[in-house]
């Protein structure tokens, strides 16, 4: 029987075989690489931080270019997100970079709703991807992935601890996106203060259960550098696009009356570490994590909400497509029923109105008839009166004539009598 054959095959253990010569499938990674290079890469960064904290400057410094952006004002009514997409190229590798800025974050007096626009934006990107995935005719390889791969959270360098807004926002974001907290404008904190500040921040994050992104330590090639970097979180960065001459080199730095802060000097700030981790080592891992962990979590929650389950009441594995089709049919059926109902209602209403109108018409007719009859009646009466009047007139005329003849004959008679 076919079933038992299948069983036999799946129970077989996998055996390791030795190769007698060079086959050549060790070029598979290279093939993959060349395919991705021709396809181009896509990376989306979300920068969350107060106005003026240095988000745009850091992006300019990281990617060594001047992304166009205007200074934001402090007087926005709420937080809104501003995504900008750029096409960058280095050697033969194309990168489609989207930088999303939070404008107005931290400026309002009441910041209770500040995190909402950010969460909504991230969810919308996930939703768009989910919709594309669920389409019947889909083109995922061509799809411009706008899901946020990394959220850089800019912490103000107060030197004490996190702000309450930071804590609240990071808690809302940690299950949706990879968060890397960074200390902005770090040239305002001395070394000893920085050490204490970092410890305080990490302990606050841990004690409040905020899950920030940990650089992966499972790949032997990068495990050493990643685990040492994990210990330096949060990175204290300084950004600058201005160049200052130091010694006989021109480096990107900030010039103060008391010294020059060099951006790429590891003893001045952790910028180099951030760039290393974010771009040179872990960019691909960030994309993977976003897809495998955060997006899957979103997808599961969303589909469960819609009523899908992995197994039906009989514990038979459900096919998503079947369930989806069933749901669609149900939905369409509902729609049709509703349409019918509405049509019925409309017809009923029309009938009612028609009946009313007929009734009114009848009434009007009746009234008309009544009026006509009355009119006839009156006419008759008037006719009668007229006849009466005529008769009277005739009678009167007769009498008049009679009287006249009488009067004519009377005087003769009288004369006769006298004679």
């Amino acid at each position, binding site marked *: 029987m076919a079933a038992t054959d299948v069983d036999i095959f799946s129970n077989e253990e996998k055996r390791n075989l030795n190769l007698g010569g060079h086959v050549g499938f060790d070029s598979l990674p290279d093939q993959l690489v060349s395919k991705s290079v021709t396809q181009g890469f896509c990376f989306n960064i979300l920068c969350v931080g107060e106005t003026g904290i*240095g988000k745009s400057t850091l992006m300019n410094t990281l990617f060594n270019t001047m992304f166009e952006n205007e200074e934001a004002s402090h007087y926005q009514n709420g937080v809104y997100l501003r995504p900008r997409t750029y096409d960058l190229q280095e050697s033969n590798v194309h990168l489609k970079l989207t930088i999303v800025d939070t404008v107005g974050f931290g400026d309002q007096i009441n910041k*209770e709703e500040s995190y909402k626009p950010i969460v909504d934006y991230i969810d919308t990107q996930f939703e768009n991807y989910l919709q594309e995935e669920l389409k019947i005719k889909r083109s995922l390889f061509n799809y411009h992935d706008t899901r946020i791969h990394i959220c850089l959270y800019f912490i103000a*360098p107060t030197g004490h601890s996190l*702000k*309450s807004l930071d804590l609240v926002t990071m808690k809302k974001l940690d299950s949706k996106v990879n968060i890397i907290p960074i200390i*902005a404008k770090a040239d305002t904190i*001395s*070394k000893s203060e920085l050490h204490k500040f970092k410890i305080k921040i990490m302990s606050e994050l841990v004690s*409040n259960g905020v899950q920030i992104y940990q650089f992966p330590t499972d790949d032997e090639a990068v495990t050493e550098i990643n685990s040492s970097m994990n210990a330096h979180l949060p990175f204290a960065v300084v950004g600058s696009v201005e160049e200052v001459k130091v010694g006989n080199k021109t480096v990107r730095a900030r010039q103060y*009356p008391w010294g020059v802060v060099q951006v790429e000097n590891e003893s001045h700030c952790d910028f180099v570490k951030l760039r290393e981790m974010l771009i040179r080592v872990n960019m691909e891992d960030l994309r993977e994590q976003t897809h495998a962990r955060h997006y899957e979590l979103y997808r599961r929650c969303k589909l469960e909400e819609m009523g899908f389950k992995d197994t039906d009441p009989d514990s038979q594995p459900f096919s998503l497509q079947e369930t989806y089709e069933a749901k669609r049919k149900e939905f369409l059926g509902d729609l049709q029923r509703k349409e019918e109902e509405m049509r019925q209602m409309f017809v009923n209403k029309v009938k009612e109105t028609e009946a009313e109108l007929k009734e009114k018409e009848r009434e009007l007719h009746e009234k008309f008839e009544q009026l006509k009859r009355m009119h006839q009646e009156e006419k008759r009466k008037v006719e009668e009166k007229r006849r009466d009047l005529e008769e009277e007139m005739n009678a009167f005329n007769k009498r008049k004539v009679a009287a006249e003849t009488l009067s004519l004959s009377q005087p003769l008679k009288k004369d006769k009598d006298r004679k």
Partner: protein
Amino acid sequence: MTSSGRFKSRPVKSAVFQEKEYVGFATLPNQVHRKSVKKGFDFTLMVAGESGLGKSTLINSLFLTDLYKDRKLLNAEERISQTVEIIKHTVDIEEKGVKLKLTIVDTPGFGDAVNNTECWKAITDYIEQQFEQYFRDESGLNRKNIQDNRVHCCLYFIPPFGHGLRPVDVEFMKALQDKVNVIPLISKADCLTPAEMKKMKDRVREEIEKFGIKVYQFPDCDSDEDEEMKQQDRELKESAPFAVIGSNTTVEVKGQRMRGRLYPWGIVEVENQSHCDFVKLRNMLIRSHMHDLKDITCDVHYENYRAQCIQQMTSKLTQDSRVESPVPILPLSTPDVETEKLIKMKDEELRRMQEMLQKMQQQMHEQDL
């Protein structure tokens, strides 16, 4: 004495010369000096601003002491819904025989919560309380030992990380401008390069003017002061708002120990005028304008409060008296009632007539049919 009878308008000679025309009231300043040293001075300073902007460090640097030993700072979680507290620290310090009772009013929790609506209310209430207390003491019978707890000056710390004033800054300063002398400061000035500093100061000045915020204005110096003083005065006015840096630690610079901040790329000296405006602030606050701040508090802010208070009290009195007296002062109430009754009656009549009219119309209509 012969000199007392002759009031000739002669120029006053120095007190050393015991001339016949010398009256001697040129020693009045000395007498004032002596008495005031004996009495001692007091000054109440309020500091306000979000936490982490260096307020405590600046106070320590200004008065060269450590007011904030064993201070407990709250975690971010605890600050989510924190309310503003008012904490007073009083210290007695002495310098060259002059005693100063310094009170620092701290406002922890300001601007730290997630929802900061009206977070300045606690502060304005506190200031008004002090005014009220002084007002009551002043109007009392025994006025020997009045304690003056009125706030003479409020240093407001603006964060340097933004592009200028934020809404909470504007609201706070507007709420306090009529109650206390507000001096805005740009804190943690080692965050800004000189070009950025200039831009920030211009921005803040613009916005202060745009929103009509009345900050403390330095009084013009007298026209007969020498050029140096005038120059200093001008510089002072031009560098407002002051950009300050504070430090609790001392560093060694060129063999000298002074307050500063040590960075890998250099040392920031707190008292170096090219690094920050700390010296200007200190000179203004302590060395030249302390008394002016007190005067303005007494003469302007307190008097405004007092006038307001008295007005409110008198208007309340007249209101109360109107209700209590049996004979109405203004005969507005009774005629109102009468006319209202008339109006009501007329209304009723109108209604009745309308009804009758309707009935008649109906009858006619029926008759017609």
